[in-house]
């Protein structure tokens, strides 16, 4: 019961957070100078009165609070309205973009965790110099090298020179890039945590029991690192959103990130809001899941 109450409380807190994000973005998007009508005026040659007419038509001249009220009321009913830039239903645009990002982000996330855990565990288990250097290299790699930079080099080598992969639409390269980048962000703290855990008393006990190193790693060392790994995976997730954005732009992946970026550039408020809402809910769900996982793995929390 207490478990459920805690989970419910956390979920509520995270939902409030998601709502907060949506409100902030709603306001911030409108603080940004210019609106979609300005954009349409550039190539569309709209006179001043035509522009005014269009603003009224799109409801952009109403007070913010009214706009927000209307938008949230409809959003609550699952209606995100039409894109004011393209005149398409926003729901459909998000629906087509979402799977791309989900697959991309999901696979990158898994790759990041597998790589980071693999390298960190390997380095701690074997104490191998190569693997320990790998921890440092991957770490510096992710700090110092912007992903778009690696992406450009990757395109040049694998698409243009070697013709192995298409430039547009292929997910393999971006997943690799973001996966390695994500791994780099967590591999060092993970490694340090594991090394710390390797000297902990219960791991020493496991040694005293004469268990094999493999069993000690899997059953005694790894569970200890679970809370840290989960906390760190939140970090990866946050980085993932930035990473997917640049990768989607660079590789022309029609995902949420490029949808959002285009919408910001085009002041397409309904699309910005819907995309942010979906992202925020996604973050909430993933956070809730990691929390749940943590509670499930650690018996001390499951009461």
């Amino acid at each position: 019961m207490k478990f459920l109450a805690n989970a419910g409380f956390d979920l509520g807190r995270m939902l409030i957070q998601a709502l907060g994000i949506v409100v902030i973005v709603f306001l911030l998007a409108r603080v940004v100078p210019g609106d979609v009508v300005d954009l349409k005026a550039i190539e569309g040659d709209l006179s001043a009165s035509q522009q005014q007419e269009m603003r009224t038509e799109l409801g952009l001249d109403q007070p913010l609070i009214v706009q927000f009220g209307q938008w949230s009321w409809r959003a609550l009913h699952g209606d995100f309205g039409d894109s004011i830039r393209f005149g398409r239903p926003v729901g459909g645009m998000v629906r087509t973009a979402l799977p791309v990002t989900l697959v991309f982000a999901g696979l990158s996330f898994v790759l990041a965790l597998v790589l980071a855990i693999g390298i960190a565990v390997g380095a701690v288990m074997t104490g191998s110099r190569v693997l320990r250097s790998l921890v440092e290299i991957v770490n510096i790699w992710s700090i110092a090298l912007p992903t778009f930079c690696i992406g450009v080099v990757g395109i040049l080598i694998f698409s243009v020179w070697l013709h192995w992969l298409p430039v547009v639409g292929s997910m393999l390269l971006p997943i690799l890039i973001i996966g390695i980048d994500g791994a780099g962000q967590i591999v060092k703290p993970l490694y340090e945590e594991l090394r710390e855990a390797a000297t902990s008393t219960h791991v020493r006990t496991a040694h005293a029991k004469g268990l094999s190193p493999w069993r000690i790693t899997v059953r005694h060392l790894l569970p200890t690192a679970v809370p840290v790994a989960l906390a760190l995976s939140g970090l990866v997730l946050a980085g993932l959103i930035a990473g997917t954005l640049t990768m989607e732009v660079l590789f022309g992946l029609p995902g949420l990130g490029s949808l959002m970026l285009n919408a910001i550039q085009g002041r397409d408020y309904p699309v910005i809001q819907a995309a942010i809402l979906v992202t925020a809910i996604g973050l909430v769900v993933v956070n809730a899941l990691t929390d749940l996982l943590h509670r499930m793995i650690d018996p001390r929390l499951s009461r």
Partner: protein
Amino acid sequence: MNALVIRNLVIAKGQRRLVDGVSLTLAKGSTLGIIGESGSGKSLTALAITNLLPDGLSISSTSTIEIDGVALPTHDAHAMRALRGAKIAMVFQDPMACLNPFMRIGTQIDEILAKGVLPRTARTTRIVELLREVDLPDPATLARRYPHELSGGQQQRVMLAMALAGEPDLLIADEPTSALDASVQAEIVALLARLQARRQMAMLIITHDLAVAGALAHDLAVMRAGQIVETGPAQAILNAPQHPYTARLVAARRTLVSEPSDAAHAGHLLVEVTDVAVDYAGRGLFGRPFRAVQGASLRLERGRTLGLLGESGSGKSTLASAVAGLRPIAEGRIRLLGHEMRPGGPALPQALRRRCQVVFQNPHGALNPRLSIARALGEPLGLAGIPHREHAARINAVLRDVGLEAEHAARFPHQLSGGQRQRVCIARALLCEPDVLVCDEVVSALDMTVQVQILQLLKELQKKRGFGMLFIGHDIDVVRWISDEVLVMNKGRIVDRCAAHELGATASRDAYTQRLMAARLSPLAA
């Protein structure tokens, strides 16, 4: 035939020798105790036997360790693993930290059984048998529990069951009772003795506690600074120590169990606590508050010491911090130096606060590592508005009072020993000229010889300065020795109160007090 022979064991960290030429012999079926204070190298010696020394420590190539007459295969990891958990088993100090919190008890024991040839069903039966052997109730259910669902004593029993699972010839127990409450300690010691006798194992007991060593060991080795200073039959050493260091250890213990001097005369009333309750805020937003202390009443007069005796979680420290005005009370009232504190009432005025000082258990955490001793001692002076030019003189004076030198003022906390640090803490409290001194487990983290010195210092200072002292502790001997009157706390309530010399297992006392007294291991009292 010897179960264990160690010859010229040298363990070094770089150039520094932490264990320096230790040689030991443990006969089959007998128990050897290694006693010594912190830093004596006794635990390292034990770890060396299982080849589990921490990073950066190395065993000299001239050292030999033989188990059953066979040299330890230190360079063959596989052979070492086969030995560990089977021929050699080990039990450590803190069972909570030693058990894997993510695994069920049964699974953790099964890890050792699985190394053998037993089929799964037979192993399940064996786990239950082992748990029964260490006197755990309802072993079948217990095997499915997680470590955090067990009490400290139960956890240590599980550790023992795990050690026995490999049918060891040699059991190494490193401070097996130190992390446990007094009442549990005796049970575990008794269990260890019984198991050793029943299985006729060779047992190596590492401990700082002479009482534990006396209760378990047939032979004793006394270690100091990496070397063995004295060996021999246990009773001989404890009754007639030869080496001066051993003699000091024994004398320290004797001091504590000796009858305390006469109770001091009561001065005027400093503290009066009436029916006080203290709450802890609940966890989370909807958590219910937890009542740590309930219906506590006490009186402390000038020049007297009130002992507050209890096990961990009994609420004794909480009550003390409420008296010092550090924690609000939920019910009742506290009268401190004429000022009355009530639930929801105003906090203690700053001027009064200075007159009631607290000395904490861990002198390490009580001193800011970034501040030199002079600056740490200057803090209360500066806050009292004493001009800076007078600080040096006052600091030197108080350092002398607590038995330190003026040169200590320039040092940093980490450059001092534990005992010296505690003296600094006392000095710092004294600089506030307190009327009430709350001592919260002030000697628990210290070695026995140092404990006695600190206790004697406190008593001396009290005689000179006349403050009232509230002394919190879990060690019956310590509390009894220093106090004029003792209150026994259990589960947030004061269950018993009496003059210190009346504290004994007499029938007139409360049942809980009797249990505490009965569990006391005091082979030296005789």
